[in-house]
């Protein structure tokens, strides 16, 4: 969109596409859903617009202050200073999910993960941070609903991350779901899970600790293996009479397999057992038993990582790709806009791409999406760029030693699809301390990029 384009022309421009793509698209869990169905809840109708300063340019609203949303927020205005950027997140405190397992065994402290302020990020990058939960979306009116009021947008980015899919591991009864997630958290979404898991590590006195690995394109492919390695190292270091059992739904370690197997075999031979093709089919939290298709395993403590899906917000907003097994959003493969709607984008781990769901992927993708948005705000298009997945895993905690992968992706124009890793993908699978230190700098670089100026 040209920066001088007025609202009427802007509407005209988007109208043809919107008419085809967004008829009846007012959806959501509160405001917009009831508005769309013709009945307005009294509680919601009292909330009008959120009081924001008048937009000084095309308003870009970003839902989700994780790596994806924060990267786009930081880079959009740098790329196109006319943007008026508003970031919406229900959290008021950030705590990094990436690198969190390192905290469990004392390689880093909590400050490393959590001393990053949304306020500083907003000031450093000239945007407004709104502490609110997105509750609905009216794409025809270009209006986002939050629990604190509605916000009109010219461009909307939804980067709400993931939700767990308990049913895929045979945990369906709500009582069972809450028992599993509260007692044996997966530890790949919220900070409170990490607090609980760290406590479990520190309090583990012996027996079997089970770490499960789900199937599908789950968040942070090496994460559960890394955590298992760190726990095994913790057991060894502290002379605990116990072991780690990895129940892996996959037939092989899903990434950096050589580096992980090397650690399993050389560092943790007596304290770690890896069982491939062992998808969880049920959990008995009282008896502390995990069931797989053919076996069942007793445990003393566990981190049960269920399958994942796109954040439920994507489904609530009616944006799910019917072909996605993980209820991910139906977006353009190269440019992330919801199919048929050039004003709404879904990025980060809710996208329906086969990309690794990881911090560096979201960070590099976010930098590209910021350029896409800046171009489109000026009526231009840019060429596709692959995100890049640079990802470390601490296979040894004592001393910290890491392995690494660096992957980009291949786009096939004939299929209009991402077909896999690019041929120049590299791995460094002989662990060493230099990569252990680089791992910490890797995270701090992303914190600087997303929170710094």
């Amino acid at each position, binding site marked *: 969109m040209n920066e001088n384009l007025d609202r009427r022309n802007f509407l005209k421009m988007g109208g043809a596409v919107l008419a085809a793509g967004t008829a009846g698209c007012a959806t959501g869990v509160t405001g917009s859903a009831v508005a769309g169905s013709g009945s307005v809840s009294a509680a919601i109708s009292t909330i009008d617009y959120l009081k924001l300063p008048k937009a000084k340019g095309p308003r870009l609203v970003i839902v989700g202050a994780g790596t994806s949303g924060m990267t786009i927020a930081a880079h959009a205005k740098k790329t196109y200073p006319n943007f008026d950027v508003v970031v919406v997140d229900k959290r008021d405190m950030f705590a990094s999910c990436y690198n969190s397992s390192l905290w469990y065994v004392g390689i880093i402290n909590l400050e490393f993960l959590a001393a990053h302020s949304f306020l500083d990020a907003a000031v*450093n990058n000239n945007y407004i941070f709104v502490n609110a939960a997105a509750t609905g979306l009216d794409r025809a009116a270009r209006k986002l609903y939050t629990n604190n009021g509605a916000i009109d947008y010219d461009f909307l980015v939804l980067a709400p991350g993931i939700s767990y899919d308990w049913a895929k591991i045979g945990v369906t009864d709500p009582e069972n779901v809450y028992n599993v997630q509260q007692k044996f958290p997966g530890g790949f979404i919220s900070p409170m899970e990490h607090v609980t898991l760290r406590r479990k590590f520190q309090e583990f006195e012996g027996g079997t600790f089970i770490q499960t690995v789900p199937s599908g394109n789950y968040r942070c492919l090496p994460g559960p293996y890394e955590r298992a390695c760190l726990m095994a190292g913790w057991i060894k270091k502290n002379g605990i009479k116990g072991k780690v059992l990895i129940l892996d739904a996959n037939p092989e370690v899903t990434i950096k397999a050589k580096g992980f197997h090397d650690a399993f075999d050389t560092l943790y031979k007596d304290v770690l057992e890896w069982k491939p093709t062992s998808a969880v089919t049920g959990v008995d939290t009282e008896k502390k038993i995990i069931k797989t298709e053919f076996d069942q395993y007793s445990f003393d403590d566990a981190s049960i990582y269920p399958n994942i899906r796109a954040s439920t917000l994507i489904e609530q907003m009616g944006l799910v790709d019917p072909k996605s097994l993980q209820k991910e959003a139906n977006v353009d493969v190269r440019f992330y806009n919801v199919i048929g709607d050039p004003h709404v984008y879904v990025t980060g781990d809710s996208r329906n791409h086969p990309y690794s769901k990881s911090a*560096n992927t979201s960070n*590099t993708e976010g*930098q590209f999406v910021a350029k896409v948005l800046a171009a489109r705000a000026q009526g231009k298009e840019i060429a596709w760029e692959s995100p*890049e997945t*640079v990802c470390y895993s601490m296979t040894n905690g004592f001393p910290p030693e890491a392995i*690494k992968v*660096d992957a980009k992706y291949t786009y096939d124009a004939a299929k209009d699809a991402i077909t896999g890793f690019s041929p120049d993908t*590299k791995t*460094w699978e002989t662990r060493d*301390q*230099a*990569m252990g*230190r*680089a791992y910490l*700098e*890797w995270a701090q*670089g*992303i914190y*600087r*990029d997303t929170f*710094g*100026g």
Partner: protein
Amino acid sequence: MDRRNFIKVCSAGAAALATGVHTQLVYAGTVKDFARVKLVDANGKPLKASSLSKDEAYVFGYPFVGTPSFLIALPSAAPAGATLKTESGEEYSFPGGVGSKKNVVAYLAVCTHQLAHPEKKGSVMAYIAGNSETAGRAVAITCCSHNSAFDPADGGRVVIGKAPQPLPGIRLEHDAATDEIYATGMYGADMIEDFFKKFKGNLNKEYGIGKYREAPAGTVQAVLLSKYSVDADRC
């Protein structure tokens, strides 16, 4: 750069050449003059351009105490002339190496991607004279944090990775009579304030409150990266 600045830079260079001192000529408005300091070793002895190690970079705090730069002796001459561009679109030209072999160059050792740099506790930045897996070639400055690589023989140009602009160059001067090396300024992207802003807390801790902003005077120590950092990641 306009004609006036071009002439100004050229004349300064010409005057220097006449006296046997070779100053790198940078044809751009991106040049910033800083204090002229002599590069010395850990004992305060002047470094000689012709006897520098070709295996690794030297680290020196320039243009400020808290901004690490790399001094590198390349295996062969680095000819001047390549045109480079900052992220904001400013063009400038690589002034080439100094020394009798024209192989000595210097760059700010701060990755233009996310500002990683050598620290005492370790470095993800390194000059690799041999083969770099990340760069896919020999003679590269690598940042292993997110795998960017730069070409020290070509003005710090980005070879691979998400770094959006070349490494800023440190302007050097070589005294042919003594073979000594001086740093006199910087050219290319201006990243110093951004670097200070993002590392202020750490820099205050390491150098004392506000000390990192002080300019070195007279001489500045340049020590091998292997002596400066506990360990450097090479990729």
